[in-house]
């Protein structure tokens, strides 16, 4: 059965027909062709598919597209203007917080939600805050550093957390 949904994605209003069972991650990747959101585990353990839904991080592999009707979605492609970096992106670059880059978009989206609720987190709070996002390459040290750097800069700049 098809359902018409209307939602805002990275600031753009979109209307689409979706099947009941279409997963939000496939809507984003295949219908919207925003392939920065990845699929890593299918069981909501790895967080590669993390996006912001109405400002909150969720795992789009475990969310039906039809339920996003009326919502506002931000994906990695919508975090900063093209050609520029949000402080969180700059921080991941500066601190070498990414290797293969596959977990990075989800990690960044999750970090944004974390920093919105806790603008000045401790190392420990960051580690717990990203515990639903797996990274196989970095050993997390530099991701923690990156989130700290971003926290500092966002506080200084009072940059909205998207």
């Amino acid at each position: 059965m098809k359902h018409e949904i209307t939602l805002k994605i990275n600031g753009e209003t979109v209307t689409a027909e979706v099947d009941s069972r279409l997963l939000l991650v496939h809507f984003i990747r295949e219908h919207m062709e925003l392939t920065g959101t990845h699929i890593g585990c299918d069981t909501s353990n790895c967080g590669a598919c993390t996006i912001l839904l109405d400002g909150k991080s969720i795992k789009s592999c475990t969310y039906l597209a039809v339920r996003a009707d009326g919502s506002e979605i931000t994906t990695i492609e919508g975090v900063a203007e093209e050609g520029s970096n949000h402080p969180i992106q700059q921080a991941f670059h500066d601190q070498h917080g990414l290797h293969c880059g596959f977990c990075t978009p989800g990690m960044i989206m999750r970090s944004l939600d974390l920093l919105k609720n806790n603008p000045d987190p401790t190392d420990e709070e960051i580690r717990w805050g990203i515990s639903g996002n797996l990274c196989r390459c970095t050993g997390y040290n530099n991701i923690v550093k990156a989130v700290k750097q971003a926290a500092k800069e966002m506080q200084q700049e009072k940059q909205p957390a998207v």
Partner: protein
Amino acid sequence: MFNCKTSAEVGGMGHSVKRKEDARFLHGKGNYVDDVKLPGMLHMVMVRSPYAYAKIKNINKEKALAIDGVLAVITGEDLAQYNLHWMPTLLSDTQMVLPTDTVMHQAQEVCAVIATDRYVAVDGAEAVEVDYEPMDPIVDPFKALDEGAPLLRPDKENQKDNHIYHWERGDREKTDKVIADADVVVTERIHLPRIHVASIETCGCVASYDKDTEKLLVYLTTQAPHAIRTVVALVAGHVGLSEEKIRIISPDIGGGFGGKVPVYPAYVVAIAATFLIGKPVKWIEDRSENLVNGFARDYHMDCTLAADKNGKIQAFKVKTLADHGYTDSSANPSKFPTGMFSICTGSYDYEHAFAELDAVYTNKAPGGVAYRCSFRVTEAVHAIERMVDKLAHKLGKDPAMLRLQNFIKKDQFPYSSPLGWSYDSGDYEATLKKAMEMIGYDDYKKEQAEKRKEGKLMGIGISTFTEVVGAGPSKDFDILGIAMFDSAEIRVHPTGKALARFGTKSQGQGHETTYAQILAEELGIPYSDIEIEEGDTDTAPYGLGTYASRSTPTAGAAAAVAARKLRDKGKKIAAYLLEVSEEDLEWEVGKYFVKGAPEKSKTIQEVVFAAYTNIPPGMEPGFEATHYYDPPNLTFPNGAYICVVEVEKETGAIDVKRFVAIDDCGNIINPMIVEGQVHGGLTQGIAPAMYEAIEYDDEGNVLNGTLMDYLVPTAVESPHWETGHTITPSPHHPLGAKGVAESPTVGAPPAIANAIIDALTPLGIEHLDIPITPAKVWEAIQAHS
């Protein structure tokens, strides 16, 4: 600490320049295989066996084909018509692409469903009716050789039992004699269980065959695109896929760690499907398909270490049983069925050793791929490092002191190991002492003594490992006969900017930055002016790919040598431009100048421009060079890791308090990237040490086929890593570099295991196999109290 010859702007070796590849990943513009979308693309989903061992009596496609959008169901019988139902493994064994009569492990591919849509393909796979006749599987490798055990591979001529091969190195008799006469002997059976790399991106491909041009294009999650091209040509040449018509593109790869070296059956089926249907076919593995295929480890090692009463090690012996699953698909060099396992004598100086191994078939998925380690080095290092600790405990000696006493000394290099390797360089004593100083070893020893008095369980664990990477010299190392060289091709454009291509393939290692730095070091062209490309077999020079820490030792060396060829050419051009003889010129990074008259000089950019515009008479125009580097030896990185843990007696909970890793990987190209690689490797070291193992029940069911049950560490489990370096350059590598990314995965598990077992020593616990979980510790505590 890092002596940089170049300015920060040029960014040669030793500079922690930020990565050039980051921008696309940070903005969601990475291009991974599942991001590839081709016109008319179809989707493939595999039907997999629920049984570990079963006859296939019938496959009924009808219900699947009746689903709107399902175009085809491909079975082994279908492939058999083209003789594509079996394929060779990298180690001269054979593996089913799709079965015609028997499935040999749970989740083995049974048939493939091709549909217009991913969702429909999954529905189709569920609708295929397969009639199985389950049989009793062999799950325990120790029972594989029992009399009366079913013969698992009757398809192989001359295969009379489930034994695959026997391998041995060293002098059995002498080693036995030294052990028999030794003052102190320790023994242990050590198991390294199956684990899975679980890169966050699973495997997949998009195969596209154009019937008009007869060209096959495959986007593939592979660490070795060129080797795959050759394998495809070897497997499918007889149906008309010849090598010049095959193009493999390895786009961005979401982590490899060895799991993306093998040719998985579904790749071949996707290629067969596009070949037959003439439309692009995408196959993307889901996580549980990923986790139940392509394992690392699974060695059962009976170890014996002998020493005199003063603690001088005299001999080491290991007898291993290797569980390969139903086929030997180890991704090893062909003359090394057990990989570099014979590095198992470790970092210590003694004369006698003997290692042997028997490999057997079982009803499990094909094993023997890596998990972020050079071929079987993790197994070897775990064996010797556990045994050295056990010896220390038996002698009542401090494990650090015992190691310092037995180390190969700095002036003994190059060192011939008892099992035949020639270690290139190292200063093991300095490395361990640096680690001890950094962690405050003596203080922890005192703290431990205090805690023990209070009945608390605290442990300190060390591992001082020697790695062997960078395969390898062509006289010994080949895969399917192809020598394990690697390549670099440099094109410097008239304006002094460059494009360089390599036979390797980064999966997160940062090649786009580090290779540019090597060229910057050698040519003086800023790293930011150099583009690096890899992974497209139509454009890149042939190479064996990226795994086993071989990129820097092979392709990195190729880059240096190719750049030096250009520098030689540049010197001729500079001499012509400056009207002096070549002998009058000297090179300093970025320019040639006249000896004694440094104001008379030409920059590399000026020289390059002249190579296109003002060519010396008789000289070939252009400024390009290619080199295929055949390393004279392997490189032998080493490290000293120290781990401090506390164990809660009541629950078995393990708290890793500190972990210090000092690595010596020779000269360092980019310290930031090396440190990042070490961090990542350490987390992939704690993973098998405390969390990960693929478990089977007696019926051959895999019990942890999702990331709910296969416990990849999060940022909470992963400790804050403390790292450092000593630098002992490789004497034979053009840059003095050695390779590093796998050292921590090799070195961390024994350090952690040694620490936990050290904590439990007061209770009389002498050994635990990894993963050492709180439940395992708790049980051991119960059994010993």
